[in-house]
């Protein structure tokens, strides 16, 4: 008998007990679509680039941003930032100042001389782009990145399109525009200026182009019939803004009346003020609520002393500059109707800002095209009815903003690439939306009160005037860190910490986490306590 008198049994580990068998629901990690990304007309991965900005790696942030949009510094000045309108942080305190961080990153890139990498290989295909505005430049950038040879032709004397000839300098300084355009051209893109394409098919054939992207914009001012004396000084907004780029500034006089209610009308009225007009009056036939111009632009214009006459139309303009204005009243359906009540306004000049049309003459004789309401119809791949000819920006039916144009350029580039390679571009399915109810906002720090007033001031002034600079690094970093990272794991370790069963495996920095389904009981605490909504419980299937 060599057995001991008393024995000690080895204890086994509870790891033998696979509690995962209890589970009826299982957690899964997922990336949800942040509302900012969802709202961005240029399809930027805003949450993605803010993630890098949060850690102070501004170059990585800028590179992530320019994956989608090459014009960060321009965006940070002229974009109407629908991202901020949809930002979930707005439901906690105030939306993240995405636009000001974007401007900071764009300015950093110019200051530090960051460049775009040339394509890794050449495809051997040639693409013609007509129009060097935001849409054309965006398409050129993306096509060049994909390895295609790109040539841009533009009818104007300088590149930039409406960014140069429509947007006033006080909103977009020309050195910023020049720097961002040049950086795109430096990728090896040919630009031919002062060259109006008369017939697109002939031009394509002559240059042996495999595809074309048309983005000529909308540069023809719409007219309205207003009886006027021969000496009456009547101009259109497009030419006024364009001539601001030339040697001879437009002579508008001391009393300027602008007719229209869009952003262009405001641009002209504010430009007139800057040219020395003592009175700059906008006449608009409807109410402020109905005005298509953006609210903050109206606000800024009013702050600068621009006057707006609501519910008014211009009947005629006499030689000596007397305008007859008729008061309007809204009918039951909200349409303005004449009241017969007249008044007069003294004006040295009248500028019509009544919208713009597209010059479609280059498309004459192209078979298959569908034109409607003065625009070119395109399919969901941005291709016109003529195979190989794509179009975007203001010349296709859409909201006419720089950001939308840039988005068109990117989308068209991807589909042109797919069309050229014979492998149609199939956009990845969109993730489900990271709405506010998916978040656990408890975990986010309240913005410290000491920094907020400074930030508010910086935000207010950064969008107004180039006399005042944008965010400095301190503010930009703080602003970036206000991002909630909606729907996308930012490695806060909460799931790893809160699991009562130690069933979350931490994979290390940058590698996120995994569930250990041998032990996960499916309690759902990880989902409930995930700040950003990057975990979802789904039914267990046997």
């Amino acid at each position: 008998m060599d057995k001991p008198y008393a024995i000690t049994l080895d204890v086994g580990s509870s790891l033998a007990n696979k509690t995962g068998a209890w589970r009826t629901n299982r957690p899964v990690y997922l990336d949800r679509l942040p509302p900012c990304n969802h709202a961005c007309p240029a399809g930027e991965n805003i949450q993605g680039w803010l993630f890098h900005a949060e850690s102070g790696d501004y170059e990585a942030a800028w590179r992530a941003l320019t994956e989608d949009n090459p014009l960060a510094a321009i965006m940070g000045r002229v974009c109407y930032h629908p991202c901020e309108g949809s930002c979930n942080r707005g439901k906690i305190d105030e939306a993240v100042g995405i636009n000001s961080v974007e401007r900071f990153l764009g300015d950093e890139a110019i200051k530090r001389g960051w460049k775009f990498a040339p394509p890794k290989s050449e495809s051997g295909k040639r693409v013609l782009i007509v129009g060097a505005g935001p849409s054309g430049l965006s398409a050129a950038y993306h096509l060049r990145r994909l390895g295609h040879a790109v040539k841009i032709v533009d009818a104007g004397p300088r590149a930039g399109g409406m960014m140069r000839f429509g947007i006033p300098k006080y909103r977009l300084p020309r050195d910023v525009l020049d720097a961002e355009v040049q950086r795109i051209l430096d990728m090896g893109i040919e630009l031919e200026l002062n060259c109006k394409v008369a017939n697109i098919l002939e031009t394509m054939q002559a240059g042996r182009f495999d595809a074309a992207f048309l983005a000529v914009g909308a540069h023809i001012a719409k007219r309205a019939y207003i009886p006027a004396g021969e000496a009456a000084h009547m101009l259109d907004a497009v030419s006024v803004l364009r001539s601001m780029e030339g040697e001879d500034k437009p002579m508008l006089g001391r009393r300027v009346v602008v007719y229209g209610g869009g952003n262009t009308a405001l641009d002209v009225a504010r430009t007139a003020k800057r040219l020395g007009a003592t009175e700059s009056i906008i006449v608009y036939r409807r109410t402020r609520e109905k005005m298509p111009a953006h609210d903050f632009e109206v606000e800024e214009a009013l702050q600068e002393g621009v006057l707006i006459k609501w519910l008014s139309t211009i009947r005629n303009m006499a030689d000596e500059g007397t305008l007859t204005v008729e008061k309007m009243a809204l009918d039951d359906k909200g349409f303005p109707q004449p009241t017969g009540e007249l008044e007069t306004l003294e004006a040295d000049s009248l500028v019509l800002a009544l919208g713009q049309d597209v010059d479609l003459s280059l498309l004459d004789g192209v078979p298959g095209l569908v034109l409607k309401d003065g625009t070119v119809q395109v399919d969901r791949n941005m291709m016109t009815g003529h195979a190989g000819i794509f179009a975007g920006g203001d010349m296709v039916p859409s909201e006419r903003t720089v950001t939308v144009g840039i988005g068109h350029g990117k989308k068209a580039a991807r589909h042109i690439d797919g069309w050229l390679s014979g492998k149609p571009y199939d956009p990845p399915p969109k993730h489900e939306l990271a709405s506010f109810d998916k978040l656990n906002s408890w975990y986010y720090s309240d913005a410290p009160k000491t920094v907020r007033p400074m930030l508010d001031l910086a935000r207010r002034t950064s969008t107004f005037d180039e006399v005042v600079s944008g965010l400095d690094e301190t503010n930009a970093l703080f602003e970036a860190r206000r991002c909630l990272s909606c729907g996308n794991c930012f490695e806060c370790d909460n799931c790893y910490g809160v699991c009562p069963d130690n069933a979350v495996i931490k994979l290390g920095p940058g590698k996120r986490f995994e569930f250990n389904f041998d032990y996960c009981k499916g309690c759902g605490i990880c989902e409930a306590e995930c700040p950003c909504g990057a975990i979802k419980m789904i039914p267990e299937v046997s």
Partner: protein
Amino acid sequence: MHEQDQQIKFYQTGTFTVGNRLLAENQRSVQADMHRTNSLNSGHRACQGCGEALGARYAIDAAMQATGNQLIAVNATGCLEVFSTPYPETSWQIPWIHSLFGNAAAVASGVAAAQRALGRPDVRVIAQGGDGGTTDIGFGCLSGMFERNDDVLYICYDNEAYMNTGVQRSSATPPAARTATTPALGPAPGNVFGTGKNVPRIAMAHRIPYVATASVSNLRDLERKVRHAMGIHGARYIHIFVPCPLGWGSAPADTIKLARLAVETGLFPLFEAHDGQVTSSTPIRHKVPVTEYLKLQKRYAHLFGKEPDLGRIAQIQGMADRNVDDFGLLQ
């Protein structure tokens, strides 16, 4: 890091989350560590969403780190003991001993004495139990351990009833709560509004070196208190609030939420006391009415019937408000 980063002192989630990639390694919690001890390992048989399993790992991992892994734990009978050590398995990855329901504090005193006799002052001792083993059955031994100032940290995981035996009332069960022994029947359904038995306050009355309350909803606060306690010799007591989905009739996913609401309503004040005097309290961040906390639990469902029991809800609110005043929770 840039100098300016330091100047901003804003870290997106600060220390509210378990970790934070913007914080330096040494500013993160023990639970964020890839190499944490996992003192209470996977495979234990606690219910889904068990607050006690979570609280025990939080506390013991923190104590292990604070003592350089020189730690022995003594466990009272209760859920924690039952679900972690069904023979022949154990979930404990630390030296661990279980004796009886009521004698954990006394056994721990003995283990501490043994270490002293062995000349191992570096080995530290923790006793732990549920509210039953602490506030009822083990109360005599606990008071003795305090009174002798034995070198033990006693941790009570309070889930407010005897849970593994079938949810019977303990002296930590709150007023109006339904348990198996205080059913929701009669003119005053649920537990009586007694005078209460506040063990942290009783511990303070012993004037022991350190007493604290903590919650599984505030990890940083909990870890800091455990670490602080392990830096002190003599009798110490930490009372940790751990929701019980089974006994409270709450959703397993709501465990931390309920713990957070208990703090934010004022029903469970977070404070610490040295030598019998309150020295700090953790302020409420967003004050909420007690109904937000009560409504998530079936043990209070009878308060929210067709005719809400406004009188007793007001009484519970009164308890919360009194805590807010007593401990200065709104700063």
